[in-house]
């Protein structure tokens, strides 16, 4: 397969650009006309009304709880956020009413409405078996069963708000992180904009899986000034999904970016304060030549939203996504109930929006269109209120999570031991294109060992995909992924924009949606660009969702220290990620370990920060051609000794081995322990070695301050104090910034002599 070669020639012919037209508020229908056009039935219309009421009832309850006007049970104390979306029900319910059962959404910290609407709409679409699976043990049927499941939905929502074990996320997430992965709700996100790359990654997975689903990505106006959101718009709109590069899989990402413009990012006003455009819909123009089919929608009109999202979903299902909709609506309350609102807006303004309240407007339309009688409407209102009241009392009485379970759901212990048959089928474009050649001693280098591990796993499991900057034709900046594109094609190996946050964030969404992505960061320094997506998203979702979802992804990040690239390309940052519970952190030191650990990482169901060192890329070792994995969390004694333990990871292990060699010449027998993974840490192997030698130097290439070496040293002190014959000494880089100068960098980084000097301090 000839690779794609650019053919960009100079072309400076004058021209003027036509950015196209974007329409706003074009929906002219009302309930009567929609019924007549058979866009919905009277029953569906009443359901829409019920769902809007359901959302408002729950959020009203939060307001009443916080103001002391309501106690589900005596002395009940509600602790938690109060970001209510009252006023926005038309947007949430209108959008979700246009979605199918297994279509997906992501939502925001103001996401009660999105979450409840997605749930109730999906529930109404469920067959009886699916309904029953949500209320195991129920003997009810038909309408009664449906009602029971709807009440369960309200109950689990409120229970989550109350932090109860029965909540959707088992009380681990709360209202700002509520999720129901069974119906494609991939989570509300309390980082503004944080959910947008996740939705984009899920859309990428749906494209890859040839699913006919779409994802509706709810995010507020405030998010549309956030870097990762703009990265995600660009990501979703990449032409490689639809142009000649996609060959016979030209399919745009099936994602609807639904801008819930409630006019305020907390208190900052999009329109006349913190942004430069009158209509946020203009964002679409900047990212796609087709303007992402963008339009502006009246978010106070539930039918207008429903109609727009239906059309957007159709576009997406045809492979012509993404779509961006700016849906204008209004938040009646403040950012939270502690916000009196009066610093930044008037009562007149609020009154003008309340006058077109989506629920009241729709109720009038129900009556006018004779879709329901006043009695039927009253009955629905009573149904919703009674159901909510019962659910709230039950939730208040429900069991709290057990305190000893505070760490339950931090990690999963599952991994892919057997690949399900449906994922074993792998399309190979060019066999062995990425094959690694061994030298006469059967050795390959560290870089190729990682590639060989990835190739084997990609051959084993078609859910494994590889992407990052320049990983396709170019074979990555270090030629590590050379041949992968040729072997597996662009669906599984592709270049990305230089958007590190989105590289990591989309991997989270893709993993949630069923893939096992390997996302590459060219330099570990760039992980800081993506630190929200790595630390707040990848690491946290298994726990925050109460183990509803796994996030099986590998972020490969290479460390550039030692080649004179200066402060922004040389950092050893794994200690930072070891400090974020929820991630595993792996750092192999040898070619053999690199292959075994990358394979184990790909198979593991936890998110993994897989750190590589460019200094080690050319280090050779004997690496078996056959399949083997090295279990994560098992240290390796790289050299046995009895006088002193040198423990560490990464390139420092090579220095430690050199040091051990030199010490041996002086009759000192040093044991070298390579921890191989920082998290989980195999402290037992370290302690065993220290018990033997009584002396320990902890080494790494990381700067001294805050290094994980300190964690190891203090753990040895705590657990093996009586074994110590001397204080534990740490060796790392100086507490400074990696300099470009060769002389300075040599002084900056630790080396074998530093390790020997440290050892001699205590020998």
């Amino acid at each position: 397969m000839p690779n794609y070669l650019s053919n960009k020639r100079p072309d400076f012919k004058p021209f003027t650009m036509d950015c196209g037209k974007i329409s706003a508020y074009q929906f002219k229908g009302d309930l009567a006309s929609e019924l007549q056009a058979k866009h919905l039935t009277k029953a569906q219309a009443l359901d829409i009304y019920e769902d809007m009421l359901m959302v408002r009832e729950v959020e009203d309850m939060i307001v009443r709880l916080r103001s002391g006007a309501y106690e589900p049970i005596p002395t009940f104390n509600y602790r938690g956020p109060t970001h209510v979306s009252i006023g926005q029900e038309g947007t949430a319910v209108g959008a979700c009413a246009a979605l199918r059962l297994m279509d997906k959404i992501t939502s925001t910290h103001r996401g009660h409405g999105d979450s409840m609407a997605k749930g109730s709409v999906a529930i109404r679409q469920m067959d009886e078996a699916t309904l029953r699976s949500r209320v195991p043990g129920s003997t009810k049927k038909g309408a009664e069963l449906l009602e029971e499941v709807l009440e369960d939905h309200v109950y689990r929502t409120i229970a989550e708000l109350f932090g109860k074990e029965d909540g959707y996320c088992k009380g681990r997430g709360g209202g700002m992180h509520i999720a129901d992965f069974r119906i494609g709700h991939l989570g509300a996100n309390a980082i503004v904009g944080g959910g947008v790359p996740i939705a984009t990654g899920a859309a990428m997975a749906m494209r890859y899986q040839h699913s006919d689903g779409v994802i509706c990505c709810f995010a507020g106006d405030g998010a549309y000034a956030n870097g990762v959101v703009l990265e995600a718009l660009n990501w979703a709109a990449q032409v490689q999904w639809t142009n000649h590069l996609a060959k016979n899989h030209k399919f745009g990402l099936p994602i609807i970016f639904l801008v819930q413009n409630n006019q305020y990012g907390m208190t900052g006003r999009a329109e006349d304060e913190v942004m430069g455009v009158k209509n946020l819909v203009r964002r679409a123009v900047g990212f796609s030549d087709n303007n992402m089919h963008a339009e502006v929608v009246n978010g106070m009109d539930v039918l207008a939203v429903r109609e727009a999202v239906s059309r957007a979903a159709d576009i997406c299902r045809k492979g012509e996504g993404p779509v961006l909709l700016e849906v204008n609506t209004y938040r009646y309350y403040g950012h939270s109930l502690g916000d009196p609102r009066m610093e930044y807006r008037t009562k007149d303004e609020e009154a003008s929006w309340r006058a077109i309240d989506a629920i009241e407007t729709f109720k009038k339309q129900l009556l006018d269109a004779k879709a329901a009688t006043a009695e039927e409407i009253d009955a629905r209102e009573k149904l919703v209120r009674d159901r909510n009241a019962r659910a709230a009392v039950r939730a208040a009485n429900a069991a709290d999570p057990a305190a000893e379970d505070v760490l339950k759901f931090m990690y999963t212990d599952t991994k892919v031991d057997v690949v399900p048959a449906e994922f074993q089928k792998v399309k190979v474009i060019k066999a062995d294109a990425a094959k690694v050649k061994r030298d006469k001693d059967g050795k390959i280098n560290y870089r190729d060992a990682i590639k060989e591990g990835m190739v084997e796993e990609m051959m084993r499991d078609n859910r494994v995909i590889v992407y990052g900057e320049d990983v396709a034709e170019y074979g990555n900046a270090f030629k590590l992924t050379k041949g992968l594109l040729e072997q597996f094609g662009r669906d599984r190996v592709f270049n990305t924009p230089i958007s590190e946050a989105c590289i990591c964030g989309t991997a989270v969404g893709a993993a949630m949606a069923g893939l096992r992505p390997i996302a590459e960061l060219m330099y570990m320094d760039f992980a800081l660009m993506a630190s929200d997506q790595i630390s707040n998203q990848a690491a946290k979702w298994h726990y925050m969702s109460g183990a509803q979802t796994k996030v099986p992804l590998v972020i490969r990040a290479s460390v550039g220290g030692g080649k004179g690239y200066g402060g922004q390309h040389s950092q050893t940052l794994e200690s930072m990620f070891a400090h974020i519970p929820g991630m595993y952190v792996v750092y192999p030191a040898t070619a053999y370990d690199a292959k075994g650990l990358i394979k184990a990482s790909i198979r593991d169901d936890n998110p993994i920060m897989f750190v590589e060192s460019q200094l080690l890329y050319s280090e050779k070792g004997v690496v078996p051609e056959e399949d083997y994995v090295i279990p994560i969390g098992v240290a390796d004694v790289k050299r046995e000794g009895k006088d002193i333990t040198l423990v560490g990871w990464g390139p420092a292990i090579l220095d430690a081995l050199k040091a051990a060699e030199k010490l041996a010449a002086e009759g000192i027998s040093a044991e070298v322990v390579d921890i191989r993974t920082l998290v989980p840490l195999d402290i037992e192997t370290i302690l065993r070695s220290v018990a033997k030698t009584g002396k320990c130097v902890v080494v790494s290439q990381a700067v001294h301050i805050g290094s994980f070496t300190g964690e190891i040293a203090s753990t040895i002190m705590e657990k093996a104090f009586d074994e110590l014959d001397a204080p534990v000494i740490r060796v790392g880089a100086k507490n400074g910034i990696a300099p470009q100068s060769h002389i300075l960098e040599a002084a900056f980084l630790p080396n074998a002599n530093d390790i020997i000097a440290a050892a001699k301090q205590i020998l």
Partner: protein
Amino acid sequence: MPSPIAMPKPGQFTEECTIVKWLKKEGDKVAKGDILFEIETDKANMEVESFFEGTLLKILTPEGGTVPVQAVVAWVGQPGEAIPATPPPPTPAAKPAAQPEVSVQKSAVSQTQTADVAAPQVVIQKPQAVQPAAPRKLKISPRAKVLAERSVINPAPIRGTGPGGRIVEKDVVAYLEAKSYAQLKITPTAKEMAAKEKLDLLSIRGTGDAGKITVEDIKRAVAEKPKAMSKMRQVIAQRLTQSFTSTPHFFVTVSVDMTDLVAYRATLKAKNMPYSVTDFIAMAVTLSLKEFPAVNSSTDGKSVWWHSKVNLGLAVSLESGLVVPVIRDADDLTLLELHDRSATLVEKARNGKLLPDEMSGSTFTMSNMGMMNVENFTAIINPGEAAILAVSSTTKQPVVKDDKVVVRQIMKITLSSDHQIIDGAHAAQFANAIKAKLENVELWKTLV
């Protein structure tokens, strides 16, 4: 700025004190005069009051903790105030604690000072006198320590070769080798016992087969194991040794015929009058001291000074040692007052409730072993005093009176005198003055 609460210096010779109990806890409000904590000194337990008002912010020395006197043990201030990381620096010109204390303490001036320093509420803004540090902690690595413990040896004699002279594992190994530890034979039970008792196996001679150390050997070693003396005992030892080795003692004994006084006392007792024989002796001593001021004096070897008042020390034997409560201004007291003061002080002494100023400032001491069935004994002069009177048991003895052998109640008293300032004749006169008073019942009839 919070105020430091210092460990008081309850006695001239006190170097460190132990906090027995805190009566306030961190966060408690503290008013001036509130009792903060209770300490155990070398002499007794006492309560320490606060000089400050505020909140007890931080306790630095927990219950059971021993610190040098004048060290900061707590901070009182306003809630939220930052506590200085280190206590205020000590005043450099502090008096070295180990200075021989015999010389000056008994002068009027020095008594005032003593009273000040010994006040229980001493809360010193700028702690003085950095006390000599406790014996340096043995520098030994945890691993070497464990090996020594496992080997049941005392690591103190081992020379450390680690950084800063720290004893490290290899030093212990070398030491064990040098001492042929491997050849040492011991029964498992014996070793277990030895470990529990923290004995040093290398110092135990085995009496079993081929020198094997047996349980019996361990039991013997345990019995012989040095045990720390109580603080009180240590002070007694120090003071008496100093007195006995630096003061030239000589002894004068006289026999006192107590027959008449004993009979007289019996009649008083029948009238419910409480006087004890000790009261009479104390009074006789006090009266005699007024006649012989040289015996009620102090010297530093270069000068001698007489005390105008009699502060009479009464040695009281306790289980834990010896205390000397002081009857201040005994020469101003009637016999009844003397009796009352003496009874109160002895009672307090037995209960460990003596305050420091009730145990200091004596100018002359008497030690009464009358109840102990002793023929005669000599006492060691309380440092800073010129003499001490040892009172023995009163026993019936045949004596010659008016050329007839008769049975009389005889009590021997022995005066130990500091020959630096008292000569034999003077001592004899003083002893006989006491004797004359005790034998003169008519005198007592005027005093009762």
